[in-house]
């Protein structure tokens, strides 16, 4: 009983904490948000670069700017929200509704291809590819 709620509780605290943090402090302008270690080492953009600024932009209502910072994060966010809601309802209602999309081979391979193409394209320093760079 206790362990059933322990990890979901940590998830809830994390999600609420992150939403509060990135709405109270704007990662686009505040200096002390962590920089990407991958970028510092390689000067290449990883698929996650810009996601903090994208999240802050989204929470401050600037949808188009958030797309500019990290297109991929904004695309997958609705799917992740869906997964979170289904898992939460399963836990509360003691049901076991499966996440069909996430267990479909076509979807998971599509995610993989999207991540890899996105990573490749945003590192090409030529217009229009560099529009995907943060």
């Amino acid at each position: 009983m206790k362990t059933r709620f322990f990890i979901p509780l940590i998830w809830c605290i994390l999600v609420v904490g992150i939403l509060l943090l990135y709405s109270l402090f704007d990662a686009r302008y505040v200096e002390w948000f962590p920089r990407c270690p991958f970028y510092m080492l390689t000067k290449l953009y990883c698929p996650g670069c810009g996601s903090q600024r994208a999240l802050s932009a989204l929470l401050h209502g600037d949808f188009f700017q958030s797309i500019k910072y990290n297109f991929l994060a904004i695309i997958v966010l609705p799917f992740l929200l869906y997964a979170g809601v289904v898992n939460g309802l399963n836990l509360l209602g003691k049901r076991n509704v499966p996440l069909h999309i996430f267990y479909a081979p076509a979807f998971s391979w599509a995610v993989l291809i999207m991540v890899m193409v996105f990573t490749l394209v945003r590192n090409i320093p030529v217009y229009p590819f560099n529009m995907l760079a943060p």
Partner: protein
Amino acid sequence: MQSNMQGQPIQPKNWLVESTLVTIFCCLPFGIAGIVFASQVNTKYQAGDYEGALQASKDAAKWTKIGFWIGLAGLLIYLIAFFFFGVAAIWGSRHF
């Protein structure tokens, strides 16, 4: 292995949600390895390779967790460094 009503083993957890989160928010390529194994879980399970799907599930869990913990460690190192250098900078600007 647990079975479902049709007598097939239950599809193992594929870690796709977690590995996608690590890819996007931990700034590390380990999440991509997690997504690769997550996809293998789905493909192998559909093909009837239940043992392979279980192994891919374990690998997906492994890489997702490696990415998560390295990401968290990096964050802590960053915060500690920021705190010390930040404090040093304020102290320095006032006294030197």
